[in-house]
């Protein structure tokens, strides 16, 4: 907890405020610098939420395009980092919604191997259990769990990023934790 509290809201080296202001005024060079500085962080977030490389890539790209379009209307540039994460979460949400609507099943060859290993009884580690459980949760629950447990955002920052009251963030996090527990239990039952 203490470690989490020490973390900064930023998700990388600070971005110069003048760069943000230039980008807000339509300076694409300035925005490109922001893209280069924040691509890894945004991809890490979308990847953690979506659990799929191709989707994470699409969502990260969509997030930056949305930022570019919406940047002139960013009212509080000093909260740029929180806004950036919010846009990335929204892009993930849009991506997974469109994917689930499509019910597309793209099966990479690695999945074949993974399924074969699972069938062979290889014990899954915590990351694999978490991965499977997260996949069954709604995207909003995945997002709040990722922001809290991976990105280390305390409740106040969750509230800021998700634009919800702190009390709501707390109850949503609680509900997401409970849903995750249920999913882990369900997955455990399926493996037996």
């Amino acid at each position, binding site marked *: *907890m203490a470690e989490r509290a020490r973390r900064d809201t930023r998700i990388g080296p600070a971005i110069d405020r003048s760069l943000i202001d230039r980008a807000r005024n*339509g300076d*694409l060079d300035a925005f*490109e610098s922001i*893209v280069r500085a924040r*691509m*890894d962080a945004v*991809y*890490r977030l979308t*990847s*953690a939420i979506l659990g799929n*490389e*191709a989707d*994470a*890539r*699409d969502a*990260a*790209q969509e997030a*930056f*395009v*949305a930022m*570019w*379009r*919406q*940047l*002139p*209307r960013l009212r509080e540039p000093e909260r740029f980092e929180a806004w950036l994460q919010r846009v990335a979460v*929204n892009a993930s949400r*849009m991506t997974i919604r*469109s994917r689930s*609507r*499509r*019910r*597309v*099943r*793209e*099966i*990479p*060859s690695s999945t*074949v*191997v993974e*399924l*074969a290993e699972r*069938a062979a009884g290889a014990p899954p*580690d*915590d*990351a694999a*259990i*978490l*991965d499977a459980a997260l996949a069954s949760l709604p995207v909003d629950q995945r997002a709040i*769990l*990722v922001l809290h*447990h*991976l990105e280390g955002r305390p409740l106040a920052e969750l509230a800021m990023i998700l634009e919800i009251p702190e009390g709501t963030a707390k109850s949503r996090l609680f509900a997401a*934790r*409970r849903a*995750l*527990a249920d999913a*882990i*239990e369900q997955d455990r039952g399926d493996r037996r």
Partner: protein
Amino acid sequence: MTSGWEDQRLQTAFAARAASATRPAANLTDLTIERLRREPRPRATVIQHGLFAGLAAVLAVVVIAAIGIGFRDRVPLTSMSPSATAMIGSAASLGPSTGPASLPAMSIEAAIAMRDGSSEPGEIRVVGWLRGGVPVPCPAPMRPFNPTQLWCPQALPWIVESVADSGVGRLNEPPSGPGIQPSFALVDADALPSLMFGSAPPAAPVEITVAGHFHDRRATLCSSSGACWATFVVDRIDSIGGIAQPVTTSYDLAIQAEKGTTSSGLEIPPPTGAAEQFDAAVMSQGHRLAVLSRRVMSIDGLIDAEPALAGGWTGIGTATTVTSITAVETEEGSGTPHPFTFLFPDRGPLFYEMTADGPVVAGNLAVQAFPDLVARVGRPLTVNVTIGHRDQALDATELLVAGWAWAPGPLFCTLIRPGEPVLDQCPSTLTWLADRKPPPATGSEFPRPDGPAINLVIPPESVNLARLDTKPARVAVLGHFDDRRAAACPSGLAERCRRNFIVDEILDPARLALEATLATTVHPAPSNTPKGTATWAADTAGLPEADRTNRLISAFPVAVAALGALEPDLAGTSSTAGLDTVWLVHFLDQDVAGNAIVRTRLVIDADPAKGPAQVFDVTADGMSPALSAAP
């Protein structure tokens, strides 16, 4: 709460999961920046609109009131022209599926947020208040036109969020709150009141609901550097002042004004029938398409509406008029509803779906010329419906599915399991059938579907009947789920194989027919020389020549040594021991419930001159002697 998954364990697991995830591809940043460079600059502010109004006034050469000939379509709110638009049909008379009522209705502010948050041309209904244009002097319109390009926007109406902004347009005074300037270029807008500056204010604010979309495909052809993607292209005026409006047919100027000539001086014969005669063809495309509007155009009008055709279009043939029908998908599960535009050249049998890259054949009005296949397997389904079939009623019924298909092209696939004809593996995992044409792929990536899509698994027996290009094309795919060979898939994957869509043949959507000649000639001969012929094998399997059209899918010889690649269960069995060559005959038949299915018969190769050959049914249980060779 997490039964042993306390905070620390959860955090560690999240960190491990993130560490094991792939890093972003090295070129992701570059691809993103490349895409951003193609994006328009963030939208102009209202202040810039005001500046533009002043600039336009200085440059004025023609007053708006004079903009009539050749441009009336694009500025329909001028009061100079009497209505010449015919109202044909109505939402009520065309049944429940023709109204866009299922589209989400949203406020102007929400529509703007959607516009800026996505690049999809999602069809929406927007509710707002009408605000008139201002009769500022405008330069004469110049070709090429583009429905997404708002010519002289100061003179055009707004739809605004706040009732306080509504009413008669005000000079140099943009709306104080959220507002959009729609393009009414493709619909009949004569029913809208004229609220031009200087006119008498209406007794009450006029609330309107319109269906339309941002990010129109024509925006990329915009000649100005303006943000044409941000233009709300109206596909239908849904209601005016709370009064529901019918589905209308509009006519372009050349036809509407009954001038009788195009700009090239040729006479324009009237269309051969009413525009709504094509509604059924549109609806037959699936997606539960609802007609939003129809437009009858001369060639000039067509080019104005579809600037992509300015360079010519051979599909128009000798037609002098073209009917365009815009429809929206209302099928549940299709995702964000997209608008579709279909073009019907007058007197032509073919009709086309208009895409960003030009028209693509969507169907044949003379489909009665190919009744047999449709009678056997039903009309083409959408991919979305096909997915529903898989998820709710998984069986081996033969399905005809229309959509956009593409393959990855020559590809080196690793980890291929040979002898798994119905397992989804590379390149099948990169071979798609989608309801919508996919967006262009970026860089070296393969196109990814946008909307409902399934992978196409093309088994060896269908390879030569299922040619696909890397460029997405409109096709009709004959195939099925729950292939009998799924049971032979590797342990634990049988259920997955059952859910794969196995392709039997890919057809031209304008020619829904199985060609018996193709079925008997398309496969290359095996290395060993068979004694029989394909037509003999088809005959022997119970399909005489008179019965082959639209039933026979393929008849071809296989060296027994290679049989396992097609029929895993038959490889190395006693049934085929000692044989050199067999024939596989695939054909359409019915199951006991009357559903269309594909049957496979195996014919032992023999000299046709030496009497009857042995015939076997190939089923999930293996080979069994065919009781009757005449199904």
